C-alpha cells in the first residue's frame, strides 16, 4: 500500500508545484493521475521514487518511509519501482537488450555491471520480457532505430526487469498515436491485472482513464481536486479539474 501524506514540493525558484497532497493507493490498483499540463502530475510521480526531493510530507510504501530513506535504502526501494516515461528515455546508442538489462542495475553488483557483465539468468529474463511486449526480434538493434511504439515497449520491458511491485508511468502514451496508445495501455493493464503490480499512470485522455483505470486522482495547480472512480467525473467535475473554459474532447 502506498500512502502519500501532505506532500508538498516547492522548486528552487519558488514555484509551488505540489501543495499538501494526500492520498492512498492499495496494492494492485490501477490509479490514473489526470490534470492539465503543468498541474504537477510529473512532479508527483517523481517525488514517489525521489527523483525529485519532496519539500515536505511523507510517502510511506509498504510501511517504509521513502522520504526518510538513506541513499542505500533508496537504491533498494527504487529497484522495486519501475518507471515508464513519456519520451521513453532509452539510451539511444545502446542496443535494445542493453536498455532492457539496465533495469537490473539496482540488483547486480556495481563492480561487475561496470564491465557490462550481467548474469545469464538476467539476459534470459530480458529476452523473455522483450518477447512479452512482442519485440524479441529487435533485441540487437540500436534503440533509436525503433519506432516510438516499439521504444515504449522497450521502456516497459526495462521496468519489468526490475521485478517491480509498483510502476510509475508518466504520460506513457502522450507521444503515441491512438492505436499504439491502446496497445501500450493494454500491456500496462496486463501487468497490473496478471502480475498484481500497482500502477500509477498519468494520462491526458479521459477515454483512456475510463477504459483502464480503477480509480482517478486529479490535480489542478498542484492541489488535489478530485479523487474517485472514473465514472464519477461528470461535466461539473470536469470543469473543476480542467478549468471553466475547457471542453471535453475524449
Amino acid at each position, binding site marked *: 500500500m502506498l500512502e502519500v501524506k501532505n506532500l508538498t514540493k516547492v522548486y528552487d525558484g519558488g514555484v509551488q508545484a505540489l501543495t499538501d497532497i494526500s492520498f492512498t493507493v492499495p496494492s494492485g490498483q490501477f490509479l490514473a493521475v489526470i490534470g492539465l499540463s503543468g498541474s504537477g502530475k510529473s512532479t508527483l510521480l517523481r517525488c514517489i521514487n525521489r527523483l525529485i526531493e519532496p519539500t515536505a510530507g511523507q510517502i510511506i510504501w509498504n510501511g517504509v518511509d521513502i522520504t526518510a530513506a538513506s541513499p542505500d535504502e533508496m537504491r533498494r*526501494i527504487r529497484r522495486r*519501482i519501475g*518507471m515508464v516515461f513519456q519520451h521513453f528515455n532509452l*539510451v539511444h546508442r545502446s542496443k535494445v537488450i542493453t536498455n532492457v538489462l*539496465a533495469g537490473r542495475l539496482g540488483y547486480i553488483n*556495481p563492480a561487475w555491471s561496470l564491465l*557490462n557483465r550481467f548474469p545469464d539468468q538476467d539476459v534470459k529474463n530480458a529476452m523473455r520480457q522483450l518477447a512479452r511486449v512482442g519485440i524479441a526480434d529487435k533485441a540487437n538493434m540500436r534503440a533509436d532505430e525503433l519506432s516510438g511504439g516499439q521504444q515504449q515497449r522497450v521502456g516497459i520491458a526495462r521496468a519489468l526487469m526490475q521485478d517491480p511491485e509498483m510502476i510509475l508511468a508518466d504520460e506513457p502514451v502522450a507521444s503515441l498515436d491512438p492505436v499504439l496508445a491502446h496497445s501500450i495501455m493494454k500491456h500496462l493493464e496486463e501487468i497490473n491485472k496478471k502480475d498484481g503490480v500497482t500502477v500509477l499512470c498519468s494520462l491526458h485522455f479521459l477515454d483512456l482513464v475510463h477504459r483502464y483505470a480503477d480509480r482517478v486522482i486529479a490535480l489542478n495547480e498542484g492541489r488535489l481536486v478530485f479523487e474517485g472512480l472514473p465514472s464519477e467525473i461528470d461535466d461539473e467535475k470536469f470543469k473543476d479539474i480542467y478549468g471553466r473554459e475547457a471542453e471535453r474532447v475524449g
Partner: protein
Amino acid sequence: MKSTTTKNTSLWKSVRLGATILLVFVVYAYGFEITQVNLDELRSPQRQESLVRVTRALFQPDLFTYKQDESVVNTPIYVPCPEGGSVPAPTPEDRSAPYLVFSPGCANPGDTIQVEGFNFYPNAEGALRFIPGNDPTTKLALGSDTVATDAEGHFVATLKIPDRQSPQAQYVRATLRRNTGLPQLTDTARDTWEKIVETVFLALLATTLGTILAIPLSFIAARNLMKSVKSPLGSISLSILGWPVGIVGGYFVVDQVSAFSAPLAENIYLNLLGGALAPVAAMLAARWALPEMETQTPGVPLRIARLASLFLAALVGFFGLYQVASLMVNLGALIGDRLGSFEFLGNFMVQSGDIIRTITPVVGSLAVGGAVSSFFSRLGQRGTEKLTKSQVKLMNLVLATTAGAVVLALLGQAIEWLYELNRPDITRWGMSLVGAAAGALLALFTEAKTSLPIGLAVYTVTRTILNTLRSIEALVMAIVFVIAVGIGPFAGVMALGLHTIVSLAKLYSEQVESILPGPLEAIEATGANRLQTIVYAVIPQIIPPYISYTMYRWDINVRMSTIIGFVGGGGIGFLLQQNINLLNYRAASAQMLAIAIVVATMDYISSTLRERYV
C-alpha cells in the same frame, strides 16, 4: 516637451558616436605606434634584396639532388710570357678527350685571355679558374668565373689573369660537372623525414595520454553530474581525511609489494608465472568478494571476510603488475638484441615495463586513497543516519575541525616548500589553526543532518584548475618539461599531453553537460548508483563527440608539435629553427613543406573520421 527629449537623445547619440569613433581612432593609432608599422623598411633595397633571395630559396626546397660527374682539365700557361716571344699552347695529343685552347697562349698579369674548351660534357656548367704555383693537383684556385657548354660540349670564355708570376708553367683549370643517374633525396630530406615521423608520433602519444586522463576529469567537471552530489558534513570530512590516510597507506603497501617482488624480478620464467597466475588469483578473489547479485544484506563477518579478500586481491594484483612489468623489461631486452632493425619493438617493451613499474606506486596509492576515502565517506553517511542530531553535531564538529586542519596544514607544507619561508609556526601550526577554525565554524553553522552540495564545490575547484592550466600555452609548459626531462621529444610529449588533458577535459565536460537528461533519469530510477548511471546513461551518449574531439585534438597536437621543437621539445621544429638561424632557407623550406603536408593530411583524415563517427 517630448520633442526636446527626442532632440536631446539624438544629440546625445551623436556625441556618443563621435566619442566612439575618436576612441577607436586613438586605439588604432596607438596600436600602430606599438607594433611599429613602417612601410619604409619594406621599401629599402637591402630588405627587398634579402626578401627576394629568401623567397626564391623558400620556393626551392632542398629535397632532391643528383650524383655529379666531374671532368677536370688543367692546361699549362706561362705568366708572364717567357723571354723571346710567346710560347704556343701545347696541342693536346688526344683530340677526343676534353681540352682547353688559350689565345694568346701566354699572358702578362692583368691581361684577359680567351679560353676555348672542347669535348666537355654537353650542356653542363662549371668553373674556370687560374691555379697559381706549378702544381696542377693543388686545391688552391683563383677566380670565380663560370662557364657553360653548348650541345657539343664546347665553350668560349674570357679569363683575367691574376698577378701571380712564375718562370715555369702555371695552370688554368676547367671543372665541369654533370648530373648522373636519377635524382636522390638530399640529407636534408632524410633528416626532415625522420623528424616529421617523430613529430606525428609525438602528437599521437600526447593525444593518447591526454585523452586517457581527460575522460575521468571531464565527469568531475560536468555540472549536471555533480550538481546532485550532496553529502552530510561528517561524510565529507571523513572522505577528505581518507585521501591522505589512503595515499600514505597505499604507498606503503605498494612499496612493500614492490620490495617483495624485486628479488623475483630477474628470472624471466618466474615473471611469466607470476604475471599469469597473479591476475587469475586476484580475479578469483575479487569474484568471490563481489558476488554478481545480492538478494539480502550480508552479515558483518562475511563483509569483513570479503573486505579482506578484496585487499588480498589488490595485493596479488599489484604483485602481478610488477611481475608483468619485469617480464616486459626482461623480454624486451632479450628480444631487442635479436630483432635487428625491429629493435624498437624490444625497446618499446622495456620502456613500457619501466613506465608500469614507475607509475604503479602512484596509481596504487591514489587508488587506495580513493577507496579509503569512499569507505570513510560511507562510514560518515552511516553515522549521520544512525546517530541522534546532537551526536551528529558533535561528530561533525570533531571531524570537520580535523579535516580542515589537515587540509590547510598540507597546503601550508606546499607553501613552505615553494617559498622556503622556514616558518613552521605559520605554515604548519598557523595554517592548521585556521583550517580547524574554519571546519569548526562550518560544523557549528550547518544543520546536523543536512546534506551539503559537495559536488558543486568539487566541480568549481576542478573547473578553476582546468581553466588556469589551460591558459598556459603548451610552448611554455614545454620549457618547464625540457628542464625536467631534458631536451627532446619526451619533453614535448609531456607538455602537449598536459595541455591536452586540460583542454580536452573542458571540451568533454561540455559534452557531458549537453547530454539528454531523460536516460539519466531513467537509469537512476532503476536503482542504479552514480557510477552505473555514468556507465549506462552518460557514456553511450558522449562517445561520438568524444571521438570527434579527440581527433580534433590530435590535429591540433600535430600542428603544435611542429613548433614545440623551437623550445627544445623535439619534433621537426628543432630542425626548422636551426636552419632558419643558419640562414639555410632551402632546408627550412623543405621542413615547412613537410609540415604543410602533414598538417593538411591530418586535417583531412580527422575531418573524414569525424564525419563518419558523428
